[in-house]
């Protein structure tokens, strides 16, 4: 493929105790990009990272680094460094010695080490912390030391294993920006692992969505959000209504007996498909003006907008709108062609994208009687 691929994973299979953890994984990572492996816990993202770091050998498959086969090379000979989930800083060394660890191993001259540590501490905003013990640092400070320690060896690729998971929300947001800036300044490939979809979207050049040891989709954050490949991706990234549809012909899809214009083509005639409609892309109008109609079953005010659950033929849609509505109102919905995204049916079809359990919960909180009535209807 392209020449500037720094890393390539080819047909990687891993299983622990007979359980498949990675199931034929193929991934190319470009030089100097910020790529995020995103997925629920147990999807294989950390395992992928450990294979790249060299802590784990795949049962089958090859890893190429800079075009050369990387299998079997021990971690200490790889030009790859890791920021561990719990930082793994050395408790018996102070901040200075932690950061200097890799350079000491490489036997660089003392004066050079001193200069480098000073520069790195400035980079991560920890000047004057040289002599501090690790146990006296806050989580955010430990995080910064871990970053400085990992990049002190000037790796070509930096692996980050959910490094922000232990930080509080505010600090996490700040660190997201800082990491992104740092990556651009250093020009190092970052491979970032997270289960937080928002984090993945804000930081990455490309996102790799994983589930059950397989890559579900690779693309820019915009691609992943706007053009999800299957119901799993659509549901995992943001909120989405995923409804059954039928492709009447190119650019025309039938949902709940109504034909909608759309921008998708290339499906069989009358092929059953999954249709994704993001909650913010639906307009609420008077019932007589709407393309389809439904009844409002719950409404929540979230500040920026209202979150309304509308029951349409037994399927509950989530709609985010600035227009208020009342529970029990009949409303019409209008969906623009560019708001409709068509996906092929997959193993995930029907599993995600219905907000009935969601609305039930809200109903039960606000008005238990109505819910039982509602349930009887269905």
């Amino acid at each position: 493929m392209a020449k500037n691929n720094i890393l390539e994973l080819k047909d990687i299979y891993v299983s622990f105790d007979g359980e498949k953890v990675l199931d034929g994984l193929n991934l190319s990572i470009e030089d100097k990009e910020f790529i995020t492996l995103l997925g629920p816990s147990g999807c294989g993202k950390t395992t992928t990272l450990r294979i790249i770091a060299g802590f784990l050998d795949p049962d089958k498959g090859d890893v190429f680094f800079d075009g050369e086969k990387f299998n079997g090379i021990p971690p200490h000979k790889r030009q790859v460094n890791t920021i561990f989930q719990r930082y793994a800083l050395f408790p018996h060394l102070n901040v200075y010695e932690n950061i200097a660890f890799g350079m000491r191993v490489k036997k660089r001259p003392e004066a050079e080490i001193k200069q480098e540590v000073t520069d790195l501490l400035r980079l991560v905003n920890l000047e004057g912390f040289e002599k501090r013990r690790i146990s006296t640092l806050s989580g955010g400070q430990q995080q910064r030391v871990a970053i400085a320690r990992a990049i002190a060896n000037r790796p070509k690729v930096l692996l980050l294993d959910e490094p922000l998971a232990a930080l509080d929300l505010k600090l996490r947001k700040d660190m997201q920006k800082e990491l992104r800036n740092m990556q651009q300044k250093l020009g190092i490939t970052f491979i970032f692992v997270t289960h937080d979809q928002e984090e993945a979207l804000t930081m990455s050049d490309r996102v790799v969505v994983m589930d059950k040891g397989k890559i579900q989709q690779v693309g820019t954050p915009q691609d992943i959000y706007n053009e999800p490949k299957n119901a799993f991706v659509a549901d995992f990234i943001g909120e989405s209504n995923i409804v059954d549809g039928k492709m009447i012909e190119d650019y025309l899809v039938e949902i709940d007996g109504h034909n909608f214009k759309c921008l998708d083509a290339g499906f069989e005639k009358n092929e059953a498909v999954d249709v994704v409609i993001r909650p913010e892309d639906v307009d609420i109008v008077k019932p007589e003006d709407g393309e389809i109609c439904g009844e409002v079953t719950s409404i929540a005010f979230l500040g920026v907008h209202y979150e309304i659950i509308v029951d349409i033929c037994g399927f509950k849609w989530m709609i985010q709108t600035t227009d208020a509505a009342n529970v029990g109102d009949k409303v019409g919905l209008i969906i623009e062609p560019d708001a409709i995204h068509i996906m092929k049916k997959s193993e995930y079809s029907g599993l995600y994208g219905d907000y009935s359990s969601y609305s039930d919960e809200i109903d039960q909180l606000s008005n238990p009687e109505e819910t039982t009535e509602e349930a009887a209807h269905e």
Partner: protein
Amino acid sequence: MNKKGFGSRIVASPYILWAALFVIVPLIFIAYFAFTDPSGAFTFSNIMQIAKYKKAFGLSILYSVIATIITLLISYPMAYFMTKMKVSSQKMIMVIVMLPMWMNFLIRTYSWITILANKGLINTFLTSIGLHPVKLINTPGAVILGMVYDFIPYMILPIYTVMSKIDNSLLEAASDLGSNGFSRLRKVILPLSFPGVISGITMVFVPCVSTFYISQKLGGNKNLLIGDAIEYLFNSGPDFYNVASALSLVLMVMILICLFVMNYFTDSEEATVL
């Protein structure tokens, strides 16, 4: 607050009573005997007599230091390799290490006599294959062997415990930063297992330096240690209690000094490196 203090004092009282009766009171007795003559008059003469036991003191310390070093050299790699094994194997080795401790100390030492004696197991074997018998029993080597054998579990246990608690991600971080196996051992495992080494050394050195039985059974008459001298004096009747107490007191002070030096090492280690 007051109530809680009262409650915890009640709970603690049996232990305090125990400590007072069986630790503090005997210590006072030893000090009393050490500084009095048989008639009960104050004297330094008991302490002065210690010079006569120079050799026993010297041998005790020398043998104990050697035995402690040998124990450490065997235990540290063993503990290290144990932590690398499967959990089930680790447990099994632990049981094997502990097993001799379930047997009586005297029997364990006696069994070495049958192995090391002039017509014991080893020499019978040597003569049967046409070699000359070797003098093993009643040598300093036999005493040190006995010490190592009897006290090695006290070295393995603390080192293994500390070592097995070292977070594996620290070792991964070290290799991630470029350390090979040896440098991981030197720069991460060794410093982090240091507290276990210190307590192992203490737990082996202290009983070694005051032991008496091993030296009598395996060392013959030439290798009498300070523990033997104390035992001999106490067995010689009440007139010798005073000198024996003086010896015990001096031994105790020596051990205390050793412990302080050890603690100083661990503390300064933490202060400078951590």
